[in-house]
Protein backbone atom coordinates (compact mmCIF):
# COMPACT_ATOMS: atom_id res chain seq x y z
CA UNK A 1 0.00 0.00 0.00
CA UNK A 2 1.35 3.43 -0.94
CA UNK A 3 1.68 5.72 2.03
CA UNK A 4 -0.27 8.79 3.11
CA UNK A 5 -0.42 11.32 5.91
CA UNK A 6 -2.36 9.82 8.79
CA UNK A 7 -4.34 12.03 11.15
CA UNK A 8 -6.48 11.09 14.14
CA UNK A 9 -9.57 13.30 14.39
CA UNK A 10 -10.96 13.82 17.89
CA UNK A 11 -14.22 15.62 17.09
CA UNK A 12 -16.68 15.61 14.20
CA UNK A 13 -15.89 19.29 13.53
CA UNK A 14 -12.20 18.55 13.35
CA UNK A 15 -12.76 15.72 10.87
CA UNK A 16 -14.89 17.97 8.61
CA UNK A 17 -12.36 20.77 8.87
CA UNK A 18 -9.53 18.44 7.85
CA UNK A 19 -11.58 17.13 4.92
CA UNK A 20 -12.09 20.73 3.83
CA UNK A 21 -8.40 21.54 4.09
CA UNK A 22 -7.49 18.60 1.88
CA UNK A 23 -10.15 19.58 -0.69
CA UNK A 24 -11.25 16.10 -1.59
CA UNK A 25 -7.80 14.56 -1.33
CA UNK A 26 -8.40 13.00 2.07
CA UNK A 27 -10.44 9.92 2.97
CA UNK A 28 -12.12 9.13 6.26
CA UNK A 29 -11.25 5.77 7.79
CA UNK A 30 -13.73 4.05 10.08
CA UNK A 31 -13.56 0.24 10.01
CA UNK A 32 -11.21 0.26 7.04
CA UNK A 33 -12.47 -2.98 5.48
CA UNK A 34 -13.41 -1.17 2.26
CA UNK A 35 -11.03 1.79 2.35
CA UNK A 36 -7.89 -0.35 2.78
CA UNK A 37 -8.98 -2.57 -0.12
CA UNK A 38 -9.39 0.55 -2.30
CA UNK A 39 -5.98 1.86 -1.21
CA UNK A 40 -4.19 -1.49 -1.65
CA UNK A 41 -5.59 -1.80 -5.16
CA UNK A 42 -4.75 1.87 -5.82
CA UNK A 43 -8.10 2.01 -7.57
CA UNK A 44 -9.02 5.68 -7.47
CA UNK A 45 -7.51 7.79 -10.26
CA UNK A 46 -5.97 10.00 -7.56
CA UNK A 47 -4.42 8.35 -4.50
CA UNK A 48 -5.48 10.18 -1.30
CA UNK A 49 -2.97 12.51 0.33
CA UNK A 50 -4.34 11.84 3.79
CA UNK A 51 -6.32 9.29 5.73
CA UNK A 52 -8.31 10.70 8.63
CA UNK A 53 -9.10 8.24 11.41
CA UNK A 54 -12.57 8.88 12.85
CA UNK A 55 -12.48 5.98 15.35
CA UNK A 56 -10.80 8.42 17.75
CA UNK A 57 -14.00 10.52 17.92
CA UNK A 58 -15.71 9.48 21.17
CA UNK A 59 -19.43 8.71 21.43
CA UNK A 60 -20.12 8.03 17.75
CA UNK A 61 -20.76 4.31 18.29
CA UNK A 62 -23.73 4.49 20.64
CA UNK A 63 -27.15 2.93 20.11
CA UNK A 64 -29.81 4.87 22.02
CA UNK A 65 -33.59 4.93 22.06
CA UNK A 66 -36.14 7.51 23.17
CA UNK A 67 -39.89 7.89 22.60
CA UNK A 68 -39.78 8.91 18.97
CA UNK A 69 -36.58 7.64 17.54
CA UNK A 70 -33.92 4.95 17.66
CA UNK A 71 -30.52 6.52 17.10
CA UNK A 72 -27.46 4.60 15.91
CA UNK A 73 -24.06 6.30 15.77
CA UNK A 74 -22.17 6.02 12.47
CA UNK A 75 -19.28 4.18 14.13
CA UNK A 76 -21.42 1.41 15.66
CA UNK A 77 -19.79 -1.88 14.67
CA UNK A 78 -21.83 -4.24 12.50
CA UNK A 79 -21.28 -6.97 15.11
CA UNK A 80 -22.74 -4.67 17.80
CA UNK A 81 -25.68 -3.72 15.59
CA UNK A 82 -26.37 -7.41 14.89
CA UNK A 83 -26.16 -8.29 18.61
CA UNK A 84 -27.90 -5.25 20.16
CA UNK A 85 -31.00 -6.47 22.05
CA UNK A 86 -32.85 -3.22 21.18
CA UNK A 87 -32.15 -3.56 17.46
CA UNK A 88 -32.89 -7.29 17.42
CA UNK A 89 -36.22 -6.72 19.13
CA UNK A 90 -37.39 -3.56 17.37
CA UNK A 91 -35.77 -3.55 13.95
CA UNK A 92 -34.98 -7.14 13.14
CA UNK A 93 -34.52 -6.21 9.48
CA UNK A 94 -31.45 -4.16 10.40
CA UNK A 95 -30.02 -6.80 12.76
CA UNK A 96 -30.42 -9.42 10.02
CA UNK A 97 -28.86 -7.19 7.39
CA UNK A 98 -25.89 -6.46 9.66
CA UNK A 99 -25.44 -10.17 10.37
CA UNK A 100 -25.41 -10.92 6.64
CA UNK A 101 -22.40 -8.68 5.91
CA UNK A 102 -18.98 -10.25 5.29
CA UNK A 103 -17.76 -12.58 8.02
CA UNK A 104 -17.62 -12.39 11.84
CA UNK A 105 -14.07 -11.00 11.49
CA UNK A 106 -15.18 -8.19 9.18
CA UNK A 107 -18.23 -7.37 11.31
CA UNK A 108 -15.94 -6.94 14.32
CA UNK A 109 -14.24 -3.97 12.66
CA UNK A 110 -16.66 -2.68 9.98
CA UNK A 111 -19.02 0.15 10.92
CA UNK A 112 -22.60 0.89 9.95
CA UNK A 113 -21.68 4.31 8.49
CA UNK A 114 -18.83 2.80 6.50
CA UNK A 115 -21.14 0.16 5.06
CA UNK A 116 -23.29 2.92 3.54
CA UNK A 117 -20.27 4.71 2.07
CA UNK A 118 -18.56 1.66 0.55
CA UNK A 119 -17.31 1.92 -3.02
CA UNK A 120 -19.15 -0.17 -5.62
CA UNK A 121 -17.99 -3.76 -6.16
CA UNK A 122 -18.01 -3.45 -9.97
CA UNK A 123 -14.97 -5.31 -11.25
CA UNK A 124 -14.23 -2.68 -13.87
CA UNK A 125 -14.43 0.11 -11.29
CA UNK A 126 -12.21 -1.82 -8.85
CA UNK A 127 -9.64 -3.05 -11.40
CA UNK A 128 -6.35 -2.79 -9.47
CA UNK A 129 -3.33 -0.79 -10.62
CA UNK A 130 -0.96 -3.77 -10.35
CA UNK A 131 -2.93 -5.48 -13.14
CA UNK A 132 -2.87 -2.44 -15.40
CA UNK A 133 -5.71 -0.41 -13.84
CA UNK A 134 -7.35 1.81 -12.93
CA UNK A 135 -9.66 1.41 -15.90
CA UNK A 136 -11.22 4.70 -16.92
CA UNK A 137 -15.00 4.44 -16.66
CA UNK A 138 -18.04 6.62 -16.26
CA UNK A 139 -18.02 6.26 -12.49
CA UNK A 140 -14.47 7.60 -12.42
CA UNK A 141 -15.37 10.49 -14.66
CA UNK A 142 -14.03 9.40 -18.04
CA UNK A 143 -15.42 7.13 -20.70
CA UNK A 144 -18.43 4.83 -20.93
CA UNK A 145 -19.58 2.19 -18.44
CA UNK A 146 -17.49 -0.88 -19.27
CA UNK A 147 -20.12 -3.27 -17.93
CA UNK A 148 -22.56 -2.53 -20.74
CA UNK A 149 -20.49 -4.38 -23.34
CA UNK A 150 -18.49 -6.42 -20.85
CA UNK A 151 -19.24 -9.04 -18.21
CA UNK A 152 -22.27 -7.64 -16.45
CA UNK A 153 -23.62 -10.68 -14.61
CA UNK A 154 -23.74 -8.81 -11.29
CA UNK A 155 -24.74 -5.38 -12.59
CA UNK A 156 -27.93 -3.34 -12.51
CA UNK A 157 -31.26 -4.55 -13.89
CA UNK A 158 -33.17 -1.44 -12.90
CA UNK A 159 -32.61 2.30 -13.23
CA UNK A 160 -29.20 1.92 -14.84
CA UNK A 161 -28.32 5.15 -16.59
CA UNK A 162 -24.70 5.61 -17.47
CA UNK A 163 -23.08 3.60 -14.68
CA UNK A 164 -24.49 0.10 -14.07
CA UNK A 165 -22.60 -0.74 -10.87
CA UNK A 166 -25.05 -1.66 -8.13
CA UNK A 167 -25.25 -0.36 -4.59
CA UNK A 168 -24.20 -3.38 -2.53
CA UNK A 169 -24.79 -1.94 0.94
CA UNK A 170 -27.10 -4.33 2.81
CA UNK A 171 -27.40 -1.79 5.62
CA UNK A 172 -28.72 0.85 3.20
CA UNK A 173 -31.48 -1.50 2.05
CA UNK A 174 -32.54 -2.26 5.64
CA UNK A 175 -32.35 1.37 6.76
CA UNK A 176 -34.36 2.52 3.73
CA UNK A 177 -37.07 -0.02 4.58
CA UNK A 178 -37.15 1.53 8.07
CA UNK A 179 -37.45 5.04 6.58
CA UNK A 180 -34.30 6.04 8.47
CA UNK A 181 -32.85 9.55 8.34
CA UNK A 182 -29.14 10.20 8.13
CA UNK A 183 -27.61 13.05 10.10
CA UNK A 184 -24.78 14.52 8.07
CA UNK A 185 -22.28 16.86 9.72
CA UNK A 186 -20.45 19.52 7.75
CA UNK A 187 -18.69 22.83 8.28
CA UNK A 188 -22.01 24.69 8.24
CA UNK A 189 -23.66 22.45 10.80
CA UNK A 190 -25.83 19.38 10.46
CA UNK A 191 -28.44 18.34 7.91
CA UNK A 192 -30.81 15.43 7.79
CA UNK A 193 -31.62 13.35 4.72
CA UNK A 194 -33.51 10.14 4.11
CA UNK A 195 -31.51 7.04 3.19
CA UNK A 196 -33.19 6.78 -0.21
CA UNK A 197 -32.28 10.41 -1.04
CA UNK A 198 -28.72 9.97 0.25
CA UNK A 199 -27.76 7.88 -2.77
CA UNK A 200 -27.23 9.28 -6.24
CA UNK A 201 -26.64 7.44 -9.53
CA UNK A 202 -22.87 7.96 -9.26
CA UNK A 203 -22.37 7.85 -5.50
CA UNK A 204 -23.93 9.79 -2.66
CA UNK A 205 -24.77 13.33 -1.60
CA UNK A 206 -21.85 13.75 0.80
CA UNK A 207 -19.84 16.86 -0.06
CA UNK A 208 -16.07 16.67 0.22
CA UNK A 209 -16.10 18.13 3.74
CA UNK A 210 -19.06 16.23 5.16
CA UNK A 211 -19.41 13.01 7.14
CA UNK A 212 -22.23 10.79 8.41
CA UNK A 213 -22.82 11.28 12.12
CA UNK A 214 -25.74 9.03 12.94
CA UNK A 215 -28.89 7.28 11.74
CA UNK A 216 -32.34 7.90 13.15
CA UNK A 217 -35.15 5.39 12.79
CA UNK A 218 -38.64 6.73 13.55
CA UNK A 219 -40.39 4.74 16.30
CA UNK A 220 -43.50 4.38 14.11
CA UNK A 221 -41.59 1.99 11.83
CA UNK A 222 -40.53 -0.30 14.65
CA UNK A 223 -43.95 -1.90 15.15
CA UNK A 224 -44.23 -3.07 11.55
CA UNK A 225 -43.49 -6.58 10.32
CA UNK A 226 -39.95 -6.59 8.96
CA UNK A 227 -38.19 -8.95 6.59
CA UNK A 228 -34.68 -9.05 5.16
CA UNK A 229 -33.72 -11.56 2.49
CA UNK A 230 -30.41 -11.76 0.68
CA UNK A 231 -29.44 -14.05 -2.17
CA UNK A 232 -25.73 -14.79 -2.40
CA UNK A 233 -23.67 -17.51 -4.05
CA UNK A 234 -21.82 -18.28 -0.78
CA UNK A 235 -23.16 -17.64 2.69
CA UNK A 236 -20.24 -15.83 4.32
CA UNK A 237 -18.06 -13.17 2.69
CA UNK A 238 -20.24 -12.52 -0.29
CA UNK A 239 -22.13 -9.56 -1.63
CA UNK A 240 -25.80 -9.72 -2.50
CA UNK A 241 -26.88 -10.79 -5.97
CA UNK A 242 -30.23 -9.39 -4.83
CA UNK A 243 -31.40 -8.34 -1.39
CA UNK A 244 -34.85 -7.26 -0.23
CA UNK A 245 -35.88 -5.48 2.93
CA UNK A 246 -39.53 -4.91 3.71
CA UNK A 247 -41.50 -3.21 6.47
CA UNK A 248 -45.14 -4.18 6.28
CA UNK A 249 -47.92 -2.90 8.55
CA UNK A 250 -50.63 -5.50 9.13
CA UNK A 251 -54.08 -5.34 10.64
CA UNK A 252 -55.79 -8.74 10.82
CA UNK A 253 -53.81 -9.96 7.84
CA UNK A 254 -54.63 -6.87 5.76
CA UNK A 255 -51.70 -4.71 4.73
CA UNK A 256 -52.06 -1.14 5.98
CA UNK A 257 -48.67 0.26 5.05
CA UNK A 258 -45.58 -1.00 3.22
CA UNK A 259 -42.03 -0.11 2.31
CA UNK A 260 -40.26 -2.56 0.05
CA UNK A 261 -36.64 -1.88 -0.89
CA UNK A 262 -34.47 -3.91 -3.26
CA UNK A 263 -30.69 -3.94 -3.02
CA UNK A 264 -28.00 -4.83 -5.57
CA UNK A 265 -30.42 -4.44 -8.49
CA UNK A 266 -29.87 -0.74 -9.21
CA UNK A 267 -27.16 1.90 -8.74
CA UNK A 268 -29.09 2.99 -5.63
CA UNK A 269 -31.36 1.14 -3.19
CA UNK A 270 -34.55 0.69 -5.24
CA UNK A 271 -37.92 1.40 -3.66
CA UNK A 272 -40.55 -0.82 -5.27
CA UNK A 273 -43.42 1.65 -5.05
CA UNK A 274 -45.58 -0.25 -7.53
CA UNK A 275 -45.38 -3.34 -5.34
CA UNK A 276 -46.17 -1.32 -2.22
CA UNK A 277 -49.26 0.16 -3.88
CA UNK A 278 -50.34 -3.29 -4.99
CA UNK A 279 -50.43 -4.75 -1.48
CA UNK A 280 -51.66 -1.80 0.63
CA UNK A 281 -55.30 -2.37 1.51
CA UNK A 282 -55.17 -6.03 0.47
CA UNK A 283 -55.15 -9.16 2.58
CA UNK A 284 -51.75 -10.76 2.09
CA UNK A 285 -52.05 -13.93 0.05
CA UNK A 286 -49.89 -15.94 -2.35
CA UNK A 287 -51.57 -14.26 -5.30
CA UNK A 288 -51.17 -10.72 -3.99
CA UNK A 289 -47.52 -11.35 -3.16
CA UNK A 290 -46.84 -12.80 -6.62
CA UNK A 291 -48.59 -9.91 -8.36
CA UNK A 292 -46.69 -7.38 -6.28
CA UNK A 293 -43.41 -9.10 -7.18
CA UNK A 294 -44.30 -8.83 -10.89
CA UNK A 295 -45.07 -5.12 -10.43
CA UNK A 296 -41.80 -4.50 -8.56
CA UNK A 297 -39.75 -5.75 -11.49
CA UNK A 298 -42.07 -4.53 -14.28
CA UNK A 299 -39.56 -1.92 -15.42
CA UNK A 300 -36.52 -4.20 -15.25
CA UNK A 301 -34.14 -3.84 -18.20
CA UNK A 302 -31.50 -6.54 -17.76
CA UNK A 303 -28.14 -6.32 -19.53
CA UNK A 304 -26.73 -9.12 -21.68
CA UNK A 305 -25.80 -11.49 -18.81
CA UNK A 306 -28.02 -10.66 -15.85
CA UNK A 307 -31.62 -11.47 -16.72
CA UNK A 308 -31.46 -14.23 -14.05
CA UNK A 309 -31.40 -11.47 -11.40
CA UNK A 310 -34.95 -10.46 -12.37
CA UNK A 311 -36.30 -13.89 -11.40
CA UNK A 312 -34.32 -13.94 -8.14
CA UNK A 313 -35.59 -10.44 -7.27
CA UNK A 314 -39.20 -11.42 -7.95
CA UNK A 315 -38.85 -14.49 -5.76
CA UNK A 316 -37.34 -12.53 -2.87
CA UNK A 317 -40.03 -9.82 -3.05
CA UNK A 318 -42.73 -12.49 -3.06
CA UNK A 319 -41.18 -14.30 -0.11
CA UNK A 320 -40.68 -11.08 1.86
CA UNK A 321 -44.33 -10.09 1.43
CA UNK A 322 -45.68 -13.57 2.10
CA UNK A 323 -43.30 -14.02 5.02
CA UNK A 324 -44.64 -10.93 6.76
CA UNK A 325 -47.79 -12.86 7.71
CA UNK A 326 -45.90 -15.89 8.96
CA UNK A 327 -44.89 -14.49 12.33
CA UNK A 328 -41.20 -14.90 13.13
CA UNK A 329 -38.97 -16.78 10.74
CA UNK A 330 -39.49 -16.75 6.98
Amino acid sequence: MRTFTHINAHTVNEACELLGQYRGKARLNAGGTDLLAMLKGDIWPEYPEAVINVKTIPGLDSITENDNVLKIGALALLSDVAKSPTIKEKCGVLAKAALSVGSPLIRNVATIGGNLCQAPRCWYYRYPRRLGGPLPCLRKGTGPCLAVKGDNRYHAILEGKGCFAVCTSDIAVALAALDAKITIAGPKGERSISVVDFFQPLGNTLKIDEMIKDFQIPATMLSMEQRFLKFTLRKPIDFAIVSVAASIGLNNGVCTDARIILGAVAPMPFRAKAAEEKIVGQPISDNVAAEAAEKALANAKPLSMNAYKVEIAKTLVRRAIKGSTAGLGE
Partner: protein
Amino acid sequence: MEVKVNEQTRKKSEEDKHISLVINGNQYSLEVGYGSYQVKPSDTLAYTLRETLGLTGTKVSCDDGACGSCTVLMSSKAVPSCMILTVECAGKDITTIEGLGDPKTGTLDPLQQSFVDHTAFQCGFCTPGMIMSAKALLNENPHPTEEEIKEALSGNFCRCISHYQVLEAVLAASEKDGGDND
Protein backbone atom coordinates in the same frame (compact mmCIF):
# COMPACT_ATOMS: atom_id res chain seq x y z
CA MET B 1 0.08 18.07 -6.90
CA GLU B 2 0.69 18.79 -3.23
CA VAL B 3 -2.26 20.00 -1.21
CA LYS B 4 -1.52 23.02 0.94
CA VAL B 5 -2.50 22.16 4.48
CA ASN B 6 -2.12 24.60 7.30
CA GLU B 7 0.70 24.34 9.79
CA GLN B 8 -1.52 23.17 12.62
CA THR B 9 -2.65 20.13 10.64
CA ARG B 10 0.89 19.23 9.67
CA LYS B 11 1.86 19.36 13.33
CA LYS B 12 -1.14 17.24 14.29
CA SER B 13 -0.20 14.51 11.89
CA GLU B 14 3.23 14.32 13.47
CA GLU B 15 1.85 14.45 16.99
CA ASP B 16 1.28 10.75 17.30
CA LYS B 17 4.83 9.68 16.56
CA HIS B 18 4.72 6.72 18.89
CA ILE B 19 2.21 3.90 19.01
CA SER B 20 2.00 2.09 22.33
CA LEU B 21 0.26 -1.24 22.31
CA VAL B 22 0.33 -4.58 24.09
CA ILE B 23 1.03 -7.69 22.03
CA ASN B 24 0.88 -11.09 23.75
CA GLY B 25 1.23 -9.39 27.12
CA ASN B 26 4.35 -7.42 26.16
CA GLN B 27 4.27 -3.64 25.95
CA TYR B 28 5.56 -2.26 22.65
CA SER B 29 6.28 1.34 21.75
CA LEU B 30 6.59 1.67 17.99
CA GLU B 31 7.97 4.72 16.25
CA VAL B 32 6.02 6.03 13.28
CA GLY B 33 8.18 6.97 10.31
CA TYR B 34 9.69 5.70 7.10
CA GLY B 35 12.83 3.89 8.34
CA SER B 36 13.12 0.13 8.05
CA TYR B 37 12.60 -0.30 11.80
CA GLN B 38 9.71 2.15 11.92
CA VAL B 39 5.99 1.80 11.29
CA LYS B 40 4.72 3.58 8.18
CA PRO B 41 1.27 5.18 8.39
CA SER B 42 0.15 2.75 5.68
CA ASP B 43 1.44 -0.42 7.41
CA THR B 44 -1.27 -2.90 8.28
CA LEU B 45 -1.20 -4.65 11.64
CA ALA B 46 -0.49 -7.94 9.85
CA TYR B 47 2.53 -6.37 8.13
CA THR B 48 3.85 -4.87 11.37
CA LEU B 49 3.45 -8.15 13.25
CA ARG B 50 5.28 -10.14 10.60
CA GLU B 51 7.81 -7.78 9.10
CA THR B 52 8.60 -5.31 11.88
CA LEU B 53 8.21 -7.52 14.96
CA GLY B 54 9.00 -10.91 13.42
CA LEU B 55 5.82 -12.52 14.73
CA THR B 56 5.37 -14.62 11.59
CA GLY B 57 2.78 -16.97 13.11
CA THR B 58 0.12 -14.63 11.75
CA LYS B 59 -0.27 -15.39 8.03
CA VAL B 60 -1.26 -13.14 5.16
CA SER B 61 -3.04 -14.81 2.27
CA CYS B 62 -5.61 -12.67 0.45
CA ASP B 63 -4.58 -9.38 2.14
CA ASP B 64 -8.15 -8.27 1.51
CA GLY B 65 -10.05 -9.30 4.65
CA ALA B 66 -11.68 -12.23 2.92
CA CYS B 67 -9.78 -15.36 4.01
CA GLY B 68 -9.16 -15.13 7.76
CA SER B 69 -5.48 -16.23 7.66
CA CYS B 70 -4.39 -13.05 9.41
CA THR B 71 -6.88 -13.31 12.31
CA VAL B 72 -5.64 -11.97 15.65
CA LEU B 73 -7.48 -11.05 18.84
CA MET B 74 -7.90 -7.35 19.49
CA SER B 75 -9.50 -6.54 22.84
CA SER B 76 -10.50 -10.25 22.84
CA LYS B 77 -12.40 -9.99 19.51
CA ALA B 78 -11.26 -11.84 16.39
CA VAL B 79 -10.32 -9.32 13.71
CA PRO B 80 -8.61 -9.41 10.27
CA SER B 81 -5.22 -7.83 10.97
CA CYS B 82 -4.62 -7.16 7.25
CA MET B 83 -7.46 -4.62 7.19
CA ILE B 84 -6.33 -2.61 10.23
CA LEU B 85 -3.74 0.17 10.20
CA THR B 86 -1.07 -0.24 12.89
CA VAL B 87 -1.13 3.50 13.58
CA GLU B 88 -4.77 3.08 14.62
CA CYS B 89 -3.95 0.38 17.20
CA ALA B 90 -2.67 2.73 19.92
CA GLY B 91 -3.64 1.43 23.34
CA LYS B 92 -4.98 -1.88 22.02
CA ASP B 93 -4.38 -5.30 23.53
CA ILE B 94 -3.51 -7.80 20.81
CA THR B 95 -3.03 -11.56 21.00
CA THR B 96 -1.47 -13.52 18.15
CA ILE B 97 -0.99 -17.27 17.78
CA GLU B 98 2.42 -16.86 19.49
CA GLY B 99 0.62 -15.61 22.61
CA LEU B 100 -1.42 -18.76 23.20
CA GLY B 101 1.15 -21.31 24.35
CA ASP B 102 3.61 -20.89 27.20
CA PRO B 103 6.85 -19.61 25.64
CA LYS B 104 8.97 -20.86 28.59
CA THR B 105 7.77 -24.44 28.86
CA GLY B 106 6.57 -24.84 25.28
CA THR B 107 3.22 -26.09 26.53
CA LEU B 108 0.48 -25.53 23.97
CA ASP B 109 -2.88 -23.97 24.66
CA PRO B 110 -5.54 -26.73 25.06
CA LEU B 111 -7.13 -25.53 21.81
CA GLN B 112 -3.82 -25.82 19.96
CA GLN B 113 -3.29 -29.28 21.46
CA SER B 114 -6.74 -30.28 20.31
CA PHE B 115 -5.87 -29.20 16.74
CA VAL B 116 -2.77 -31.41 16.96
CA ASP B 117 -4.72 -34.34 18.43
CA HIS B 118 -7.36 -34.15 15.70
CA THR B 119 -4.92 -33.42 12.85
CA ALA B 120 -7.09 -30.39 12.13
CA PHE B 121 -4.93 -29.09 9.29
CA GLN B 122 -3.15 -30.21 6.18
CA CYS B 123 -0.84 -27.54 4.85
CA GLY B 124 -1.41 -25.49 8.00
CA PHE B 125 -1.43 -22.04 6.43
CA CYS B 126 -4.95 -21.20 7.63
CA THR B 127 -4.42 -22.82 11.05
CA PRO B 128 -3.25 -19.78 13.08
CA GLY B 129 -6.28 -17.85 11.86
CA MET B 130 -8.62 -20.79 12.53
CA ILE B 131 -7.26 -21.15 16.07
CA MET B 132 -7.53 -17.42 16.83
CA SER B 133 -11.15 -17.27 15.60
CA ALA B 134 -11.99 -20.39 17.61
CA LYS B 135 -10.21 -18.94 20.66
CA ALA B 136 -12.32 -15.75 20.48
CA LEU B 137 -15.44 -17.91 20.29
CA LEU B 138 -14.47 -20.12 23.26
CA ASN B 139 -13.53 -17.08 25.37
CA GLU B 140 -17.00 -15.66 24.85
CA ASN B 141 -18.95 -18.90 24.69
CA PRO B 142 -17.11 -21.84 26.34
CA HIS B 143 -19.72 -24.39 25.19
CA PRO B 144 -20.67 -23.55 21.62
CA THR B 145 -22.92 -25.73 19.50
CA GLU B 146 -21.66 -27.08 16.20
CA GLU B 147 -23.66 -24.38 14.40
CA GLU B 148 -22.11 -21.64 16.53
CA ILE B 149 -18.62 -22.94 15.73
CA LYS B 150 -19.42 -22.99 12.01
CA GLU B 151 -20.71 -19.42 12.21
CA ALA B 152 -17.68 -18.19 14.18
CA LEU B 153 -15.30 -19.81 11.69
CA SER B 154 -17.23 -18.76 8.59
CA GLY B 155 -14.64 -16.08 7.84
CA ASN B 156 -11.72 -18.54 7.89
CA PHE B 157 -11.08 -20.40 4.66
CA CYS B 158 -9.12 -23.61 4.22
CA ARG B 159 -8.25 -24.79 0.73
CA CYS B 160 -7.25 -28.28 1.93
CA ILE B 161 -10.73 -28.98 3.34
CA SER B 162 -9.58 -29.43 6.95
CA HIS B 163 -12.89 -28.00 8.22
CA TYR B 164 -14.28 -31.36 9.38
CA GLN B 165 -11.32 -31.97 11.66
CA VAL B 166 -11.33 -28.32 12.77
CA LEU B 167 -14.93 -28.71 13.93
CA GLU B 168 -14.02 -31.85 15.87
CA ALA B 169 -10.99 -30.15 17.40
CA VAL B 170 -12.93 -27.09 18.57
CA LEU B 171 -15.80 -29.20 19.90
CA ALA B 172 -13.38 -31.43 21.80
CA ALA B 173 -11.52 -28.44 23.23
CA SER B 174 -14.77 -26.87 24.39
CA GLU B 175 -15.87 -30.08 26.10
CA LYS B 176 -12.53 -30.59 27.82
CA ASP B 177 -12.31 -26.97 28.84
CA GLY B 178 -15.60 -26.89 30.72
CA GLY B 179 -15.99 -30.59 31.51
CA ASP B 180 -16.34 -30.06 35.25
CA ASN B 181 -19.18 -27.57 34.77
CA ASP B 182 -21.50 -29.94 32.96
